[in-house]
């Protein structure tokens, strides 16, 4: 990518400049702040947006809903005039009575950060790691306001206070890496609102955050909007978030708006079939749960027994001669999983979920405790036997990063076969790959393709096929559907259900997403600070949570509020 990756869109009518730049004096009070008319976008000739049109008034929140690739973010970048190279924009984008496409780059720089603030999805990477948070916020102030350095610092301190980062705890000299994801997102918000913009564009502002953090950030956006009469454009794939925040809604699919209108109208009576599909996929009903719960024979021997498991990471000594210290990531965790059972493990980032996964898979040393798989011990200071590995497979979160891009699908899927005691010959191996792919709804012709030829959902299916090929009894699903769009997620969850029923698989379903865990698991465990703080039947944990933390989690999770169509 290059610097001029964000060129200003070429102006077709430079002569009209003087007429479009006029302040909105009180002659049209109902004048909308932002108005898009027939906006189209192509990038290197590929159509990205078609005929986008909507309006947004001050003090209102517009939710833009859509799955990945629907053009939500490109709509935002069109408004910011920060499109990638090779972009061609058509139509009119009118902001505060100025037509943005016709403004020279210099004026656009004044508008960006001055009148329009923007918040991005990835708080971990959205801040410059080598500059202090104070510098990054005050840079925005100094760009847009004629203030002295000293005043800029004062304003910066005030802005950070405003977004919930009190200067006492978060001095301006902090660097981004010293803050958590939620705190960093607050700094990004501070940058965006430092100059009191009229419009705030938030592109998936909470997608990368834990539920409790998400609740805080959404609360902050609400209060900022309320206090400053901001227009807020909230882009998200999460219908529940929109239902809690927005006044109006725009539903996008494949670069077009399929439905728009008042939140209540769209959510109560979605008229477009895509919107309905999106709702159906978002509402995770408990499908086969009851029948499966009966099948589980808890008098039989458990498939997996974890007993008093402790995992520790060494921490650097504070001084050269100081005692060796360690961080206890998993602290005295015990649980059983029975054949055919689906157990959910919920927790926020840093709670020890991933360490637990690694320990179960034999990828890290146990400090103490034991893991028994089919009564075979997998414990501290011991290699996991191949037989045990065959019994237990894993599907990871990232459908893009968890495959070697240089191997074909056939090889990727057949790879776990090496753990089998009896190596299948080439034709049998091929047959197994085909069977595994067929069982996840993929084609045997896919074996000769490379992984980049598949979508995220297809890749996750391939990952499941890879897990199935050794005919395991337990599959660990580590945030396996978290990176997927709602409709794809629903498909993959249905597939997992089918597989569990057909093959009697047990799942350990690890996720931060409560609704997904509620949907798939028979029993659920809640993990915090390395300990399991609550466990029980899914239904009882979700309807009657006992532990404070579980209550907080459930309260913080946004609920899809309006769903009363017939």
């Amino acid at each position, binding site marked *: 990518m290059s*610097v001029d990756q964000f060129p200003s869109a070429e102006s077709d009518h430079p002569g009209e400049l003087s007429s479009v730049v006029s302040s909105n004096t009180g002659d049209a009070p109902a004048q909308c702040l932002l108005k898009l008319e027939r906006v189209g976008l192509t990038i290197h000739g590929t159509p990205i947006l078609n005929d986008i049109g909507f309006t947004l008034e001050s003090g209102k929140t517009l939710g833009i809903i859509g799955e990945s690739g629907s053009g939500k973010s490109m709509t935002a970048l069109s408004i910011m005039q920060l499109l990638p190279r090779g972009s061609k924009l058509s139509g009119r984008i009118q902001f505060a009575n100025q037509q943005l496409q016709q403004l020279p780059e210099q004026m656009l720089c004044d508008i960006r950060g001055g009148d329009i603030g923007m918040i991005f999805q990835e708080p971990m990477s959205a801040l410059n790691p080598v500059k202090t948070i104070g510098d990054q916020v005050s840079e925005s102030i100094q760009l847009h306001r004629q203030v002295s350095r000293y005043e800029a610092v004062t304003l910066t301190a005030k802005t950070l206070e405003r977004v919930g980062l009190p200067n006492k705890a978060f001095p301006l000299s902090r660097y981004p890496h010293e803050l958590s994801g939620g705190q960093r997102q607050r700094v990004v918000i501070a940058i965006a609102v430092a100059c009191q913009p009229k419009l705030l564009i938030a592109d998936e502002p909470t997608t990368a955050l834990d539920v409790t953090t998400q609740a805080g950030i959404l609360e902050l956006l609400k209060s900022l909007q309320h206090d400053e009469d901001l227009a807020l454009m909230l882009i998200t794939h999460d219908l529940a978030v929109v239902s809690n925040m927005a006044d109006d809604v725009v539903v996008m699919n494949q670069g077009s708006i399929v439905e728009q209108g008042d939140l209540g109208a769209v959510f109560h009576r979605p008229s477009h079939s895509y919107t309905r599909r999106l709702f159906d996929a978002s509402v995770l009903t408990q499908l086969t749960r009851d029948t499966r719960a009966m099948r589980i024979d808890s008098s039989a021997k458990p498939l997996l027994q974890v007993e008093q498991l402790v995992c520790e990471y060494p921490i650097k000594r504070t001084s050269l001669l100081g005692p060796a210290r360690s961080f206890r990531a998993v602290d005295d965790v015990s649980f059983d999983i029975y054949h055919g059972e689906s157990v959910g493990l919920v927790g926020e980032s840093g709670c020890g979920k991933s360490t637990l996964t690694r320990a179960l898979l034999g990828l890290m040393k146990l400090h103490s405790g034991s893991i028994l798989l089919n009564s075979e011990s997998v414990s501290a200071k011991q290699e996991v036997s191949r037989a045990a590995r065959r019994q237990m497979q894993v599907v990871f979160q990232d459908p893009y990063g968890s495959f070697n891009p240089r191997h074909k699908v056939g090889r990727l899927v057949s790879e776990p076969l090496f753990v089998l005691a009896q190596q299948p010959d080439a034709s049998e191996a091929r047959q197994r790959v085909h069977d595994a792919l067929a069982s996840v709804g993929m084609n045997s012709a896919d074996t000769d393709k490379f992984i980049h030829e598949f979508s995220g959902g297809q890749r996750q299916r391939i990952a499941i096929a890879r897990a199935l090929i050794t005919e395991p009894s337990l599959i660990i699903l580590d945030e396996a559907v978290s990176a997927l769009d709602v409709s794809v997620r629903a498909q993959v969850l249905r597939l997992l259900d089918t597989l569990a029923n057909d093959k009697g698989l047990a799942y350990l379903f690890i996720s931060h997403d409560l609704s997904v865990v509620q949907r798939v698991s028979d029993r659920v465990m809640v993990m915090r600070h390395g300990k399991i703080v609550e466990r029980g039947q899914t239904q009882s944990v979700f309807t009657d949570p006992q532990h404070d933390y579980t209550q907080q989690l459930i309260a913080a999770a946004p609920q899809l509020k309006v769903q009363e169509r017939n």
Partner: protein
Amino acid sequence: MLRYLVRRVVSLLATLLVASLIVFVVIEVVPGDPASYMLGMNAQPDTVAALRAELGLDQSKPARYISWLTGMLQGDFGQSYTYKTPVADMVQDRLWISLPLSLYALALSVFIAFPAGILAASRRGGVSDTAVMGFTQLGIAVPNFWFALLLVLLFAVKLGWFSAGGFAGWESGVFQAMKSLTLPAIALALPQAAILTRVMRSALLDVLGEDFMRTARAKGLSARQALLRHALRNAMIPVLTIIGLQFSFLIAGAIIIENVFFLPGLGRLIFQSIAQRDLIVVESVVMLLVFAVVMVTFLVDLAYAWVDPRLRHAHR
């Protein structure tokens, strides 16, 4: 930050100690006894033995290592076997050529590479980028001694602006001295600049793709401001690494260029000393070069911490 510094200093001292041991052992296993080499083929065994005693070669190896090490710590590098002069003096004279030459070349390399790399990165795919990349290709492909010969042909023989070789000496004035170092410095710098330009460009391009660059544009910075204020410092880590390696290379590896320009630098000294089995000189010069390289690495480490605050706390 203090902890980072202490850590670096400890690792620096440890590196030096290990390096001195390796240098000593390697020189010990090199075939050829300095005493018999100095006395020629037909020397009497007892004469050789006497010379060995005089040179201290008859002592045990650990004892010689210790005395070499303690000597160096006190600034006593011993006597050259061949020239019978203190090694410290010989090295000092040479250092006053090699060090300025290296710094000169490094400065040229940086002054060429920074603007060229920034230009290429900011106009990615454009004419300037293609041109810069073409030149760097050339700079990497063409050996520096050939550059040196071309420079001599053009600027010394044809135009007569510079002398074709030799060193004017610092006593003839800084200007004259620097002038006689200019052609060698350019010859040394061009290939280094070509590499550094490419590193600068690719490091910048990596950073330009980062999310925080989008944040920078969204707060109202122009493309140019965003590059200079946010991208440059983030791109410095790989660039500093290469600068450190290049300086080490320049100070120790200028031997060919020193030969082309008849400069009595460290490279030439070490080359001659190996040929003459003047082991004490070889040992000392190699150790000095090791010291220089380790010092440069240390400075680069400090620069990392200055550039990237995350490294200051990395070892908490």
